[in-house]
């Protein structure tokens, strides 16, 4: 399995990872090599095998719908890199620099 440069750029964009040119080259090579090892799985015929996503003998764990104490707004907001008027602030979604459009 050999990944193209465009594949690697596409995956980085899906994962929201800003990668340098060097990183893109390194990952292109390394991911191709790792996927080569993973191809060993194709030796197995799994057409009739059910997938296993998890191994605990539990399904649909729910709790009573009761209000419980939680963190104060202040506690949670203190963790955010940037806040404004009791909200978490982020840069504009559509680009274009400064402004209240966020």
């Amino acid at each position: 399995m050999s990944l193209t440069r465009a594949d690697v750029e596409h995956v980085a964009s899906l994962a929201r990872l800003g990668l340098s040119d060097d990183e893109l080259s390194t990952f292109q090579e390394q991911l191709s090599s790792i996927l080569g090892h993973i191809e060993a799985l194709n030796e197995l015929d799994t057409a009739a095998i059910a997938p296993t996503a998890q191994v605990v003998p539990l399904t649909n764990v729910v709790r009573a719908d009761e209000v419980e104490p939680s963190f104060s707004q202040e506690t949670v907001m203190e963790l955010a890199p940037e806040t404004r008027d009791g909200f978490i602030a982020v840069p504009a979604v559509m680009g274009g620099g400064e402004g209240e459009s966020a």
Partner: protein
Amino acid sequence: MSLPQDLTLLTVTEARAALDNREISASELTRAYLERIEEVEPAIHAYLHVMQDVALTQAADADRRIEEGTADLMTGIPVALKDIFCTTDAPTTAASKMLEGYISPYDATVVARLREQGAVFLGKTNTDEFAMGSSTETSAFGPSRNPWDTTRIPGGSSGGSAAAVAARTAAISLGTDTGGSIRQPAGFCGVVGLKPTYGRVSRYGIMPFASSLDQVGPFARTVNDAALMLRAIAGVDPKDSTSVPVDVPDYSAGEQDSLKGVRIGVAPEYRAEGMEAGVDAAIQSELKRLEELGAEIVEVRLPHTKYALPTYYITAPAEASANLARYDGVRFGNQVEGDDLNDTYLKTRGAGFGAEVKRRIMLGTYALSSGYYDAYYVKAQKVRTLIKRDFDEAFTSCDVIVAPTSPTVAFAIGSRTDDPYQMYLADIFTIPANMAGIPGISVPAGFSDGMPVGMQFLGKAFDETRLIGIARAYEQAAGWYQKLPDVATT
């Protein structure tokens, strides 16, 4: 018993008795560990944060509690925590620049349980970044070193927790095991490492890596100590819906002196190519010892063992790529501001994550992406079924399976960092148990090239009491755990 001059030589079981009999105080014990940390930590770097003030306060509280007669299992016992366990009184960084300086507003459930019991927190230990690695070399804050030879890695990802117990800078410690991250470093550092059954211990408040595989467990100097710690932390937690509501037994109750009548499964698939001759020799000799102790060695087949590593390197990165989406620099953690929101995500994640974490996010994102999901992710889940079936079948003819923990002893710092897949091979014998969700314990089993060799015992799901009983009978007869490394002090 007569007390050693150096209190860090006590096992947890011995320290518990000495505390309860008022032969020592929790404050004395804690100071002994803090002094030991000062002496050997520069050579080992097991810790990212030492919690000296917290520890001394907790020790004084523990002494009051012992005085009142309300001591619990871990009251006054100095514990080290892997730095992916959230704590309200020390940073939790996951050894990542993304979370440098981050202090959680809540404790992980296991941390809260230890706190309630009056444990003493010595500090937060080094790990591979977000628990992704086999050596601690992916830590953003530099690798830890193996107490048996400081030019070598301690293993990983929970390498700091393993090194701390081996170097006696903690009485006991906690780590997580997603593909071997407890058992592998325990083997490399010559200590006991226990990965409980998936679902046995709550993961709430522990930074997730691969949620269908992650499990919490102890590093200890003896099997008995590990059993005590498991009892202290195990049990259902409403905050972790994968924790299973089963009884928490006294795991140390399965006491057995001989192994008469115990059926030990040995699989030829765990004597693979690439295994070091010294490791193979040590394991073969210990298998003979098990037979001499009365165990019956039964050959079992685990034919899908060789597919566990490729299965893992689809499943774990896929789950990681989803789990690590939360680190976007908006609600918490560090942010690098960009031109717009998307650019901020790109820059924050590009600068915050190290190479191994990025590699796994990329691999997982690829495996889950449109057009590749069935070929990789679903395929891996199907092979996971086959791996689990192998164990189900094997356990119809044996009580436990015994295998080397790793194919080699601890390797030199820097020797595998250029080739990711070479590094991944360090976990080839530990990954299958995670895929099947079964418990495993690595016990010191001799030496090769002057470095410790670990041997793992794997049991049926939720059969820890028997697993621990068998591992302890072996440990006590073999006695390898009594050998301690001679760490250079400053």
